[in-house]
């Protein structure tokens, strides 16, 4: 098992490195940062979640990784960790939740070392003081399990909100929710030296894996990254892979979602907090649809229950079924 401490890398390289290690079947833990600000989509995140013309105007690139999780903003104020383990390894768990628990323990222990009492929250978050402090995604690449995540030293909440493909009122609400539900090390532990943080995290990963050989960007690894670059940076890969949804489902943190959809002439927005719909707003031709709002508010996020409410008022079409799925958090 190798530890690669790679410092700052270009935005593409910061993602390609773990894809390449996995394709080569090389077990490793990578710690690094990105030199550039960019957005990163999960394998099936809809590209339409982001205001792509805003990103183009601002010259902010976007990458789609081949593992799970949602859309994230990545920048210099984050420390990335990537864990790459062959699927057949004894270290590779069968159960997905066990994989997160095992591979996120070093991250949780690092927070503890900084005086922050953090814990794992399924599916893939780390939370502290009721806030998400680290988001993670994972998957199988080549014949390896890969887990990738980051620790936030600081976070540009404004840029994240601005880049969302949502009406202005909802972008402002997204910003409020992110400020409430996301936590950075700066907020929770004060100014943390990034090099010290990296040293601590490397130590905790070493505890888990029982020692590392120190690694570097080998020529073979660089060649593999170059080989993969064309695939992962093509427009076809970036725009064609996402799931098709009947609107936007923005995850702020585990258990907290902002939803926006248009169905049967009604523009509907809602918040899904701990499995219950709230802050519902329905507009038809600029007029509030209070009866529909009241019917949905406080309802548990169960697809069939929501579908019944929508179908009774708006008819039962494929569009309505998809909207019910979206409002149920799916």
């Amino acid at each position: 098992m190798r530890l690669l401490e790679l410092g700052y890398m270009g935005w593409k390289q910061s993602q390609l490195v773990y894809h390449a290690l996995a394709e080569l079947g090389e077990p490793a833990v990578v710690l690094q940062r990105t030199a550039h600000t960019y957005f990163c989509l999960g394998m099936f995140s809809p590209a339409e979640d982001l205001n792509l013309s805003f990103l183009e105007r601002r010259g902010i690139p976007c990458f789609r990784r081949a593992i799970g999780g949602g859309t994230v903003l990545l920048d210099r104020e984050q420390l990335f960790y990537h864990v790459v383990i062959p699927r057949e390894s004894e270290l590779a768990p069968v159960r997905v939740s066990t994989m997160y628990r095992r591979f996120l323990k070093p991250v949780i222990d690092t927070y503890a070392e900084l005086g922050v009492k953090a814990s794992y929250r399924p599916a893939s978050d780390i939370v502290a003081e009721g806030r998400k402090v680290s988001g993670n995604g994972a998957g199988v690449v080549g014949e390896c399990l890969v887990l990738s995540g980051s620790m936030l030293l600081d976070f540009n909440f404004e840029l994240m909100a601005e880049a969302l493909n949502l009406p202005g009122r909802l972008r402002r609400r997204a910003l409020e929710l992110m400020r409430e539900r996301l936590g950075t090390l700066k907020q929770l532990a004060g100014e943390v030296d990034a090099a010290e943080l990296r040293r601590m995290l490397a130590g905790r990963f070493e505890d888990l894996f029982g020692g590392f050989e120190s690694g570097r960007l080998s020529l073979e690894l660089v060649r593999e990254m170059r080989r993969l670059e064309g695939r992962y940076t093509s427009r076809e890969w970036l725009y064609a892979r996402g799931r098709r949804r009947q609107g936007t489902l923005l995850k702020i943190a585990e258990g907290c979602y902002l939803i926006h959809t248009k169905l049967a002439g009604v523009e509907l927005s809602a918040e899904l907090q701990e499995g219950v719909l709230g802050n519902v707003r329905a507009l038809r031709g600029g007029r509030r649809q209070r009866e529909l709002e009241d019917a949905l508010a406080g309802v548990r996020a169960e697809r069939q229950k929501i579908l019944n409410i929508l179908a009774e008022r708006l008819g039962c079409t494929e569009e309505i079924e998809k909207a019910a799925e979206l409002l149920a958090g799916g």
Partner: protein
Amino acid sequence: MKSETEQVLRVGEYVFPLDRYYCSYQNSHLWLRMVDENIAEVGIDAFLSETAGRLSYLSVSSERLERGKSFATIESAKFVSRLAAPVSGEVVELNAEVLANPSRVNEAPYDAWILRVRLASREELEAEGMLRSAEQIRAWIEREIERLEEE
């Protein structure tokens, strides 16, 4: 379950109807049920459905299956993985309901078939890792449960 008289095998908390094949090849945990002379339904077994967590995405990427090769991708719990084909053949039907609502697999893994395939050769049903008897399935799942318990 399709009928109350259907024979099922229970191993630990997992249930396996005995009207179909189970694919242990590459630990793919897919089932295959013949619905016609050469047509089979393919789905995910109870073990994978439970250990993967709630499926949020399922897409089939191939019109032809090649045994052992990836034909579909799933996402559950922010984890993306591939499904390897249990047999070779031509895809003749996709289950649109399950593709649109992949969590159906978690709710009823043995009803939520993903696709129907016309087998290229029935001989593959006898290939390594295609399990049919209760004894074979039990032995395999007990090993899988042991792996879980060691975690």
